[in-house]
């Protein structure tokens, strides 16, 4: 028998594919660059508003303030970088917050152990890095194996491991801050590549922090703190990995259609495991850097950042359904949150307003993403992950 459906399709015309009106094209363009626009307008607003509110005493775009913003986005950005890959592949990693905490505690313990055992400072720091990132990566491996091999939804698996990791982090730190780290550590986590002392008796200093005090100290601005440089390197690596390598291509393919990826011979299970290792590892770097920054390991450091990092990823245009997103988008997302927070504080606005604004921006971001689907006529299937 002839399927009646086939008769109907015989009568149907061809579907218009790429024809679009200029209004649609403008809408598409706007939906792609709105985050940049929003960031730009926001900076502009604070540049104008901050001096107004403070009668010209405070400016927004000073060296010190921009550097503060860059330092502030580090943990959110690092958590978001790995998450970007995971979400593009239609997964989710809810464990990164507590994994960052675990890494902070682990690297502090390992660093202290090595230094107290007589190792010089720099090798001790490296041991701390290996311990923190290695421990984090191990959690990512467990996540990935359970998700890919045992087919448990990522949401559930990473929720579960986040509780487990939370317990382990508290146990290892004995429910207190890990202190007693070498004093020289402070320089690794806080010093900058360049120092600029404004005005009389000042100047530019490279690679060493000038011994200044009093009035000069107040006029000294650090430029490019080491953690910022390290994070920038991680960002560049992530961009390269996602855009230029087979790993990135397969990440998009899995997010676009897991079945197509499987059928074309992409080793999907192994790739998913690698993704969760990557996600946990960037969280591990964040934990390690926080240990350097505060010269202490802490189990409470990471968890509050989890949702901010997911917000940054979503604002940056990564689709929760998978298949779309960029690293630079996540950087913009993290910047938007940091600029907002800093700016509102400088305007003497109650700090809690930042949450209200960030929440609104997240929802608007998803609405814009959906409107893009409306324009292109794309049908999105919900992914069962």
């Amino acid at each position, binding site marked *: *028998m*002839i*399927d009646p*459906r*086939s008769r109907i*399709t*015989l*009568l*149907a*015309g*061809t*579907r218009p*594919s*790429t024809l679009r009106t200029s209004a649609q094209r403008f809408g598409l363009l706007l939906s792609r660059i709105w985050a940049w626009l929003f960031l730009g307008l926001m900076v502009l607003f604070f540049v104008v508003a901050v001096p107004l509110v403070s009668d010209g005493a405070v400016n927004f775009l000073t060296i010190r303030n921009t550097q503060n913003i860059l330092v502030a986005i580090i943990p959110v950005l690092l958590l978001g970088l790995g998450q970007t890959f995971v979400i593009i592949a239609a997964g989710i990693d809810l464990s990164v917050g507590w994994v960052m905490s675990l890494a902070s505690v682990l690297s502090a313990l390992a660093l202290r152990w090595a230094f107290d055992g007589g190792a010089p400072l720099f090798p001790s720091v490296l041991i701390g890095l290996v311990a923190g990132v290695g421990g984090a990566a191990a959690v990512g491996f467990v996540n990935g194996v359970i998700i890919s091999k045992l087919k448990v939804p990522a949401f559930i698996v990473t929720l579960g491991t986040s509780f487990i990791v939370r317990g382990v982090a508290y146990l290892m730190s004995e429910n207190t801050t890990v202190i007693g780290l070498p004093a020289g550590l402070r320089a690794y986590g806080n010093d900058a590549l360049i120092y600029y002392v404004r005005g009389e008796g000042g100047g530019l200093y490279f690679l060493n922090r000038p011994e200044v005090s009093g009035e000069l100290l107040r006029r000294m601005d650090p430029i490019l703190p080491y953690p910022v440089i390290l994070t920038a390197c991680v960002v560049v690596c992530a961009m390269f990995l996602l855009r*230029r*390598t*087979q790993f*990135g*291509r*397969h990440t*998009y*393919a899995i*997010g*676009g*259609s897991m*079945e*197509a*990826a499987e*059928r*074309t*011979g*992409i080793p999907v299970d192994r790739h998913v495991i690698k993704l969760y290792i990557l996600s946990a590892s960037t969280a591990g770097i964040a934990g390690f850097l926080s240990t350097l920054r505060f010269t202490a390991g802490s189990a409470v450091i990471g968890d509050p950042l989890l949702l901010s990092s997911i917000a940054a990823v979503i604002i940056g245009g990564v689709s929760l359904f998978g*298949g*779309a997103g960029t690293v630079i988008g996540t950087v913009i997302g993290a910047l938007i949150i940091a600029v907002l927070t800093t700016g509102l504080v400088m305007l003497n606005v109650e700090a809690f307003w930042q949450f209200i604004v960030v929440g609104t921006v997240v929802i608007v971001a998803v609405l814009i993403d959906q409107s893009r689907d409306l324009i*292109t006529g*794309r049908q999105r299937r919900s992914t069962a992950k």
Partner: protein
Amino acid sequence: MSKPLLEVRNITKRFGGLMAVSNVSFEINRGEVVGLLGDNGAGKSTLIKCISGVHAADEGEIFFEGARVAFSHPIHARRHGVETIYQDLALANNLDVGANIFLGREVKKRYFAGLIKTLDDQHMLRESRRTLDSLEISFPTLTQPIESLSGGQRQAVAIARAVYWDAKLMIMDEPTNNLGVIEQKKVLDLIRALRARGVPVILITHILPDVFAVTDRLIVMHGGRKVTEKMTAETNTEELVQYMVGARDDTNKDIQGSEGELPLPH
């Protein structure tokens, strides 16, 4: 005529008590388009899945290029050159044409003695364009995600991918379903282009106009059995419908089957 490219002997597949495919045999020669017809549940898809490595047949043998094969996974079948295009096409709609043609088999550039490998998108784009040109397929752009393409254009991408990777046998599952008239015609043109290249096509369909437009030979299944095999030129719509609904059955009249009497296609 040389030896058949694909020879299927007495394939049987059961799902529990259900006999999905029962003792089916046929041959596919180079450069012919064979229609596999039957109503829903006739066993077409199960038979095809036994060939393409999705299912393992319970009984029977499959010979490909003269050698006995038992594909345990679709990937193995593809490596041998048996390419199956299902209705969902196995394409990643968020990637562009070149990325899809090379999906899972990306071409890489090597730096620092292979320490760092990047995607060679230029090469992949060039090769994709060459393959599409050879099939006389033209798209406005190859660098947009294919979700902006129509169903027929996506079908063409899937076919081009198979052609690029040297498919020796193409199995197509209802390729003209859900397509508009013009697109259906284009897909049929592509099937003819494959035949011209010597690549045989097994076309699973129940759209009879397609069957008469493009096939050389027909196999009709009903209730898991092959009820007839005919040259397309020697049958008509009415007769085929009777076979498809079970009103006619060659195997009941003649246990030997009719293969022996069939003239082989040139």
